[in-house]
């Protein structure tokens, strides 16, 4: 079956498509959040060593994983936009950035709250925490660069190049931070039990999926606004029912 992918990569088609898709991601996200929270607080048992505190994991781990993952997705879209000159890819990249930055922020915040009861301090210069902090800087750099260039085309392309350079740098940064951390004998996060309980795994899975779906819904909603803003002078925008009114 030959699907014309380029048809879906045009902002015109995607605008309508995204509008239809948002509920399909948003509603499952809400349901999964409800399930995940219920399981996390009422079903999952108390951990032998960490007590109730380990329950932070169910929000900390998904946001940490996804924040890194979103950076790569963002850089991927940016690269597509730069190479094939597709407008939609660049718009997607700039729509992902705020969500990615907020996920990183949540990950840092919950990490600090987890750290306090575990190590007695809000912040430790642990390899993963430090990498997350640097990741937040990279997101902020992308957003700041995009925001300070008035011409949309240059903004897209410059930010895209930065995202690509950043994603090439992420492994180097991660490796160097890890190396630095082992040299300085810092503590690292270790999970107390040898293996996670099956309910914990399921909870984690539900929460990760919920966060993922939520992020997709928000990104789609944001990209719709971006399309509307960028294409406001075109004819198809003025044909839209929400614009005609």
């Amino acid at each position, binding site marked *: 079956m030959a699907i014309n992918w380029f048809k879906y990569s045009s902002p015109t088609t995607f605008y309508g498509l995204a509008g239809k898709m948002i509920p399909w991601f948003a509603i499952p996200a809400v349901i999964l959040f409800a399930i995940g929270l219920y399981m996390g607080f009422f079903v999952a048992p108390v951990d032998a060593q960490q007590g109730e505190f380990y329950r932070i994991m169910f929000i900390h781990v998904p946001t940490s994983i996804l924040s890194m993952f979103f950076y790569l997705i963002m850089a991927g879209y940016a690269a597509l936009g730069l190479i094939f000159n597709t407008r939609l890819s660049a718009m997607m990249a700039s729509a992902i950035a705020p969500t990615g930055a907020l996920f990183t922020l949540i990950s840092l915040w919950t990490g600090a709250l987890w750290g306090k*009861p575990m190590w007695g301090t809000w912040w430790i210069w642990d390899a993963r925490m430090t990498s997350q902090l640097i990741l937040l800087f990279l997101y902020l750099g992308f957003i700041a660069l995009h925001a300070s260039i008035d011409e949309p085309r240059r903004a897209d392309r410059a930010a895209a190049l930065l995202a690509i350079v950043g994603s090439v740098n992420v492994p180097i940064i991660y490796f160097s931070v890890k190396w630095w951390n082992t040299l300085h004998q810092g503590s690292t996060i270790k999970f107390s039990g040898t293996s996670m309980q099956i309910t914990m795994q399921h909870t984690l899975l539900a929460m990760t999926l919920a966060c993922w779906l939520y992020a997709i819904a928000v990104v789609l909603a944001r990209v719709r606004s971006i399309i509307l803003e960028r294409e406001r002078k075109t004819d198809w925008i003025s044909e839209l029912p929400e614009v005609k009114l």
Partner: protein
Amino acid sequence: MSLDIWMRENPLTYVWFGSYAVALLIFAIEIVMVVRKRKITLQQVHLMRDAGDEE
């Protein structure tokens, strides 16, 4: 430290309000921002269209 003692006595409250409530609040703020941005953008498009009609 009093916070340490309070934390150990009410771990669930600490976990819930400390991380989950904050995370959900951040999500809520993000949703509000996205909705607002859509509203403002639509308004701008309307304004532009009205201005275009008068020309």
